[in-house]
């Protein structure tokens, strides 16, 4: 049992799988000698050598094309796209090739690969290095999408993603890299498609993802002090989506709030809202409310970025207002 940061958990999860399975290889910009620009892959080059851990040129299409071609011929690559914003330069390989080729070939090909990427804001990097793109990935049929919210989940979901036989977009919340927790020793393998109830309440259900999870939890504590007792669900995996857990928690409280880092339009919370508005229509006691980054590019200045991304305060205020109206 050791204190592990979210960033260290990445290397831990990858190392666990690379030790187990020689078909697991890794590639990306600065992932080797430098240990990753976010220090998520420190030590892997040293342990596994430069045949399995490969630095690449700044060629995201080549990186993901290589991952795809390798996956369809027997390897299990883990590719890094440094910042999730950079998915835009290689989206064809992700959305048109990797996601669709299994279906198009009537199942002749499989794509057991993981694409890791630093996702979201909070570091004052401005509009092109801060996007939360979980909804970009969720909207493409054929991709699984995972966003862990703590170090333990990073390890276990990384293992599950590597072992999964489908392509997994593994989004690391940049704002959580420095967070720490106790993580047990030994092998850890989690399950894709399972949400976690991280707080049980009675009045409302708050569903959050990634960096929004600790904020939702803290908001729930503050709301509890104000007499509003909230369930908090950490979605963890957008595809597959654990609707069973989410629906049962929402129906138990009769209210749904989503806390989304992605900008408003076509965010994952809209999807959830539509599922709940169809399937739990008669169980709802009040409006479904989404708390999201507004539909704007992210500003760089700290005060502005803090205003943009859902804060504990905004969650508290929004839930409070809605529950009391």
């Amino acid at each position: 049992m050791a204190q592990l940061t979210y960033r260290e958990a990445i290397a831990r999860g990858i190392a666990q799988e690379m030790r187990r399975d020689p078909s697991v290889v890794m590639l990306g910009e600065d992932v080797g000698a430098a240990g990753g620009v976010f220090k998520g892959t420190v030590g892997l080059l040293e342990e596994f050598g430069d045949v399995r851990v490969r630095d690449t040129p700044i060629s995201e299409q080549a990186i993901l094309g290589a991952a795809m071609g390798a996956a369809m011929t027997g390897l299990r690559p883990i590719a890094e796209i440094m910042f999730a914003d950079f998915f835009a330069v290689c989206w064809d390989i992700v959305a048109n090739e990797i996601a669709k080729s299994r279906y198009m070939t009537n199942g002749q090909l499989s794509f057991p690969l993981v694409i890791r990427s630093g996702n979201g804001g909070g570091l004052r990097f401005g509009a092109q290095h801060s996007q939360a793109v979980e909804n970009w990935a969720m909207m493409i049929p054929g991709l699984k999408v995972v966003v862990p919210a703590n170090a333990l989940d990073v390890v276990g979901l990384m293992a599950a993603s590597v072992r999964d036989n489908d392509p997994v977009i593994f989004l690391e919340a940049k704002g959580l890299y420095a967070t720490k927790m106790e993580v047990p020793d030994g092998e850890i393998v989690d399950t894709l498609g399972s949400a976690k109830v991280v707080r049980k309440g009675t009045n409302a259900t708050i569903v959050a993802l990634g960096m929004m999870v600790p904020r939702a939890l803290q908001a729930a504590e503050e709301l509890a002090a104000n007499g509003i007792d909230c369930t908090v669900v950490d979605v963890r995996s957008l595809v597959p989506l654990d609707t069973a857990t989410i629906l049962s928690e929402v129906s138990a409280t009769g209210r749904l709030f989503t806390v989304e880092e992605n900008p408003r339009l076509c965010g994952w919370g809209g999807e959830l809202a539509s599922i709940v508005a169809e399937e739990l229509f008669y169980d709802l006691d009040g409006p479904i409310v989404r708390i999201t980054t507004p539909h704007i590019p992210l500003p760089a200045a700290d005060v502005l970025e803090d205003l943009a991304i859902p804060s504990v305060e905004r969650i508290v205020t929004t839930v409070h207002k809605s529950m009391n109206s």
Partner: protein
Amino acid sequence: MATKEAKAPATLDLETRLHMYRTQVALRQFETRAYDLFLENYVKGTSHLSIGQEAIAAGVAEAMRPTDWTFATYRGHAHTLARGVPMTPVFAELMGRANGLMAGKGGSMHLTSVEHGVMGSYAIIGAHLPIACGAAWSAQYRGTDQVAVCFFGDGTTNIGAFHEALNFAVIWSLPVVFWCENNLWMEYTRTSEVTAVVNPAADRASAYGLESIIVDGNDADAVYQVACDAVELARAGGGPSLIEAKTYRHGGHSRADPGKYRPDEEIAEWMQRDPLPLYRTRLLEAGVAEEELAAIDESVRLEVELATEEAKAGPIPGEDLLLKDVWADGGAAWRN
């Protein structure tokens, strides 16, 4: 770097040549029939023929081992068949039938037969060049001696993925052969009008430290020779090659396009260089009997007839296919 102008070798064994002859005849007859089927509305989607370009598919496939991999484009019928995929499932795929190569789910532009090393036909320009690198990387990593061969058009040399893939293949010394089929045209625009160099692939080779290689794409022997060199270089660990084969598509870009944007003289000139009659004549000159070639022609004709009927008789895909094989578990569920 000097341009290597590949020449047909003085001698090439007859069996190989007869096989390449048969392949070319098969591709020609298959696609001629596919065009008819399109006009008769049996083929519902789009369709891109390689008529006029058969020598490339035939020559390169001949140089490959069964375990090697082909990566093709939407213009992929020829490369698929040349690797030994039977005609029936290909016809059936064009017609959207359940006995199609992908049960109708892929369509003409996405022919894939993993069993034959045909690792997919890709319909977005450029994408499969990096993907071919990945397969080659896997072969290198696993220590097999497989080679990936990746076909693409002249117009494809101007998209970013081309550049990324070439550089990547060279720095990792990957066993991949990039094969540009330069048929002078993109869809309806002449490639030379939008390309900064004369030879869109070969003139870029030096940008990746590669040799500039041009081959007569209408000469199966020449193609075969160059392909053998490149494939064996890759297999031996010598890294990638980039080859530009000069050729011409006799018809339009796709579907029923009559290709009227091309000058009559240009078409006439290239019809003179039709790889099929040229190769037939060469074989006759090499002493092969007319009857032997005629027998091949006829056997292909019968194969096409039979395959057409088998494909037409194929069932319509059932509803169960719709939600099948999005995921490796065989299903399409995104929720529990």
